[in-house]
């Protein structure tokens, strides 16, 4: 035993009793046809698809046609004017702000979670357990609960109404899940790998960069996706900590469009669609990573 916390594998995934054996993905089957489940799935399909249909159809017609024909009918004439209206407005700026915030949050969260997890897993210090507990407890802090002191801190730092005001707390709130995921992943690294690196006289930095990081790729990508999604969809921090159009991110921009577009529902919903498109594209290309990141479960 190298460390006192080795016995408590932190797992985000609820994999039940078999979880202790990694990669034991054995084929399984539930018996026979599950008719009640199938029926429920069909009903749920309707509940999911109808609003999405309304969302899309509303955006490809003119405002007049939407108001006259209602949300269900397919418009006689398809037009992409709504999208043009949105893209010619402030939307691109909000998108750019969101991109900056998202990338910065993911970078900060990954860097700090990697160093913390590496230290927690490998150090001989007794404090490692305390550090780990800090982040475990941190999981339970809802962002609503600390928004007032965060507002105080951000104004004291004179960061109010800057992108950093969004980035810093958002990244901090992604850290606990990030640390938990990476501690889980890094714990599986074999001691012999470290020893063979040590034979080459590798420093700690080299071990981290050339052994730990490459081996923990899956976990790291999960943490990156998780923190990026948090940043992309985050609303409370931007709402409280920024104010001017220059620092407005997408979620806040959408909220503002309600007042700006008023009865121009096609444009409002086009903005909604456009805000989802980037994540949807990512979903098409990296489905597994995105689901893992969204669920905050260890990447394997």
């Amino acid at each position, binding site marked *: 035993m190298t*460390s006192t916390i080795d016995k408590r594998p932190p797992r985000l995934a*609820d994999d039940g*009793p078999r979880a202790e054996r990694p990669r034991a993905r054995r084929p*399984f*089957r*539930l018996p026979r046809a*599950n*008719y009640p489940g*199938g029926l*429920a799935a069909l009903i*749920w*399909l309707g509940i*999911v698809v109808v609003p999405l249909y*309304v*969302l899309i159809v*509303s955006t490809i017609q003119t405002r007049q046609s939407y*108001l006259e024909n209602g*949300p*269900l009918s397919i418009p006689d004439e398809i037009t992409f004017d709504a999208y043009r209206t949105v893209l010619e407005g402030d939307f691109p700026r909000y998108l750019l702000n969101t991109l900056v915030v998202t990338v910065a949050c993911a970078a900060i969260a990954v860097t700090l979670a990697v*160093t*913390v997890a*590496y*230290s*927690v897993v490998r*150090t001989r*210090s007794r*404090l490692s357990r305390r*550090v780990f507990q*800090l982040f475990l407890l941190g*999981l*339970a802090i*809802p962002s*609503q*609960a*600390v928004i*007032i002191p*965060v507002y105080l*801190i951000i104004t004291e730092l004179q960061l109010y109404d800057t992108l950093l005001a969004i980035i810093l707390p958002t990244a*901090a709130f992604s*850290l606990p899940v990030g640390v938990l995921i990476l501690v889980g992943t890094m714990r599986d690294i074999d*001691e012999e790998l470290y*020893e063979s690196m*040590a*034979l080459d006289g590798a420093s700690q930095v080299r071990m981290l960069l050339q052994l730990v990081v490459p081996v923990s790729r899956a976990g790291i990508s999960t943490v990156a996706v998780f923190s990026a999604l*948090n940043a*992309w*969809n985050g*609303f409370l921090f931007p709402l409280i900590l920024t104010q001017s159009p220059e620092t407005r991110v997408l*979620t806040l921009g*959408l909220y503002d*469009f*309600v007042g700006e577009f008023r009865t121009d*529902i096609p444009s*409002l919903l086009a903005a*909604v669609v456009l*805000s989802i498109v980037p994540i949807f594209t990512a979903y098409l290309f990296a*489905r597994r990573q995105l689901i893992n990141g*969204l*669920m*905050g479960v260890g990447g394997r």
Partner: protein
Amino acid sequence: MKPQTSKAPRAGRPGIAWAIPGVLFFAFFAAAPMGIVAYLSFTDWDGLSDPSWTGLDNWTRLWEDDGMRNAVWLSLLLTALTWLTQTPITLLLGVWAAGRQRNRAVLSAVFFLPLLASSVALALLWRTIFDPNFGLAADIADWFDLESADLLGSSRGAFAAILFVTGWQFIPFHMLIYQGGARQIPRSFYDAASIDGAGTVRQFFHITLPQLRNTIVTSTVLMVVGALTYFDTVLILTRGGPGDATEIVPYLMYDTGFAAFDLGYASAIACALVVVATTASLLLVRLTGFTRMRSTREGM
């Protein structure tokens, strides 16, 4: 990790210092604010001048405040109803999705779509759908000959709308949790039950459900903490109204703190929220003998 028996040189280990940047960062933006919000709850603060110490004033006011009583009642009601509606649905859908039906993958992918969007985007979509004049709600009221399509205009309707929209958004998430849990159940259990002549329904209640116990606890904790901290959806759909019909605790805190700028009192509400949320999840974990806490990021 295993004891070192080889003759290879011992690999060096990182000190706890590696964890310091991450710990400090997290402590500064998430842990310390917990302390600050507790301090602020004993002060009177308008956000501009310095907070002034008022002792227990906020807390006695909190105890006697009818608005707070209403908010706590609504939050608890919303949480209970969230659990009661979402658990059966997600259990059914999750177990179904763990099976091997032909269209399962495609349907699951569709079900997953709402999870990709921010709660702001989804709340805006539903806001237009609920619009009593031009939304889908108007059509539905026509079909069923309802007197009023103004769902958000009535107390019960607005509350039900919050329950429905948050369910629509988060059911796929819990479905994925149950899907993962159901996949861990060994096939042999079902084979043995089949030999004994147990039908699908009996197998569900005697194998699937007991085996999913830990998953149910996990999902329940996430649902409870999530429902206690719903905010975005309320802000966009109802703003706590009509009257105070949907003024749940997080919204009351926001309204008190950032609309009325009574930040000292809002801090007391925030503290109460943390206490309730933490107690609820600890109680659930204790009562059910479940020791592994999971992420509580949902609903933020």
